[in-house]
């Protein structure tokens, strides 16, 4: 077993929903402490890939390794223990609507740490401050804008200080300035905490800023994969279009 491949590895993974094949024999790996940006048109299976990476969906075939361990054969307890070190930002944010924004962020801390209530509140507040929501501790998720929910979701994903962070479109619905701030936050997390990042985004500007490696998913296959420069030189017209069309924004 070649485990030095990195924190995350997809080896010939296929996934279908009924008769719709979403991923066909997809392989890639992400080295520890680097950022992997997944690009692709809408509906090509980017969110599905992220869910497979933390075992929320089961692959039909292939091997998915997290820190060298094949999670496709894990039971729910084993998955739980590996998820202790993973953070996931859902495309829909998926905040618990029965809890306040602050309690959403505090939720994983209350469950998985032995800290006092005061410490947890303090930590949740400072996480909210990092995503620019310092004043929203007591707001309910339903009363936040889409972009604010997204940032609260990111704060919740960061709460357990994950060594692997999976984020689904962190800058969707954000203005350019906030979007820059979130990108900077992700870069900081990567450099300071040596966190492995997998980022799905449509925003080429933030993709360039974040990515150590990029991959372009189309019709269930990876059309191209490599560094930003490598993808820019890609022969594939679709990839070149994608890389250049949004150069400005």
């Amino acid at each position, binding site marked *: 077993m070649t485990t030095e491949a990195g924190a995350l590895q997809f080896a010939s993974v296929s996934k279908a929903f009924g008769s719709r094949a979403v991923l066909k024999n997809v392989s890639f790996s992400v080295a520890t402490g680097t950022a992997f940006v997944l690009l692709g048109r809408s509906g090509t299976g980017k969110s599905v890939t992220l869910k497979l990476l933390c075992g929320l969906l089961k692959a039909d075939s292939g091997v998915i390794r997290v820190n060298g361990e094949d999670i496709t054969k894990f039971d729910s307890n084993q998955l739980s223990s590996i998820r202790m070190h993973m953070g996931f930002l859902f495309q829909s944010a998926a905040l618990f609507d029965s809890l306040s924004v602050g309690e959403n962020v505090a939720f*994983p801390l209350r469950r998985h740490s032995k800290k006092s209530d005061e410490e947890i509140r303090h930590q949740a507040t400072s996480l909210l401050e990092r995503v620019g929501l310092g004043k929203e501790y007591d707001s309910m998720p339903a009363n936040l804008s889409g972009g604010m929910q997204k940032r609260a979701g990111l704060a919740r994903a960061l709460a357990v200080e994950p060594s692997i962070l999976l984020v689904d479109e962190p800058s969707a619905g954000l203005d350019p300035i906030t979007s820059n701030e979130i990108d900077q936050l992700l870069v900081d997390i990567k450099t300071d905490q040596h966190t492995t990042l997998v980022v799905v985004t449509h925003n080429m500007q933030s993709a360039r800023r974040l990515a150590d490696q990029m991959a372009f998913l189309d019709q269930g296959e990876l059309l191209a994969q490599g560094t930003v420069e490598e993808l820019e030189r890609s022969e594939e017209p679709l990839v070149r279009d994608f890389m250049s069309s949004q150069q400005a924004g």
Partner: protein
Amino acid sequence: MLQRQFTLRGCDLNQTSLDPQPSLLQEGLSTAESGLSFLGGLSLFALETVRESVRRPFEGGEIIRQLAEIGWRSAPLILLSGLAVGGVLSMHTRSTLERFGAESMIPTALAFALVMETGPLVTGLLVAGRVGAGIGAALGGMRVTEQIDALESLAVNSLHYLAVTRIIACVIALPLLTVLMNFSGLLGSYLAESSIAATPFTHYFETAFSSMAFSDYVPPTLKTLVFGFIIGTTSSYLGYNATGGAEGVGRASTQSVVLSSVLLIVVNVILVRLIAFLFPVGGA
């Protein structure tokens, strides 16, 4: 005319004259099939929750929260319904017993009717309506908005945290609510009675329970543990597996009420037989 019919029959044997029967049969078969697959899925889910319920962590805080929501918040509904049911029962009982000159038996007859069957069943159906719909909608909503996935991603066993806690709360709440229903029913009947014949409150209650033994009271009340389990598992199962956005949530909620009520009524028949078999004196 005749000839045409003949040729039609000759050519399109399946599509014309014989058509309605196979399609009806097929419809019946597919209904039976989906019914069986529902029961199969529900049984597996129920087994899984039972197995999960003994695992750590026990989620005590969440169970208490659900007990408050399922038990405490249902209390006003049960209390009011109990008063009304007791009042109506007493009117019927009076008109029946008066014919035999047995008015003095009214409290006893009422207590038996309430405790043996009316109390448990009405409580079960009321809770199936209020709580079944609530659980179906709450879990269904969490499913379609990815909140259940979010729980899982935060290393929480969502089945235990969401379903097992609610099922345990239902199982604990149902017998307690049934006791409340029995007492408020008796109170309702006393209020209705006292408007006709003045009897002291304590005397009424003493007469009601004077000829009732432990084995009359306890088994019918404890059978509601099973009702609670049925309501909790059915509605959790439907909500937990909801698909298809807001419409799917609505469907899960409606089906939770319908299917847990039906299952409850059917299983009640078996339980009544079982209790009659195990406690022959009281059940006969």
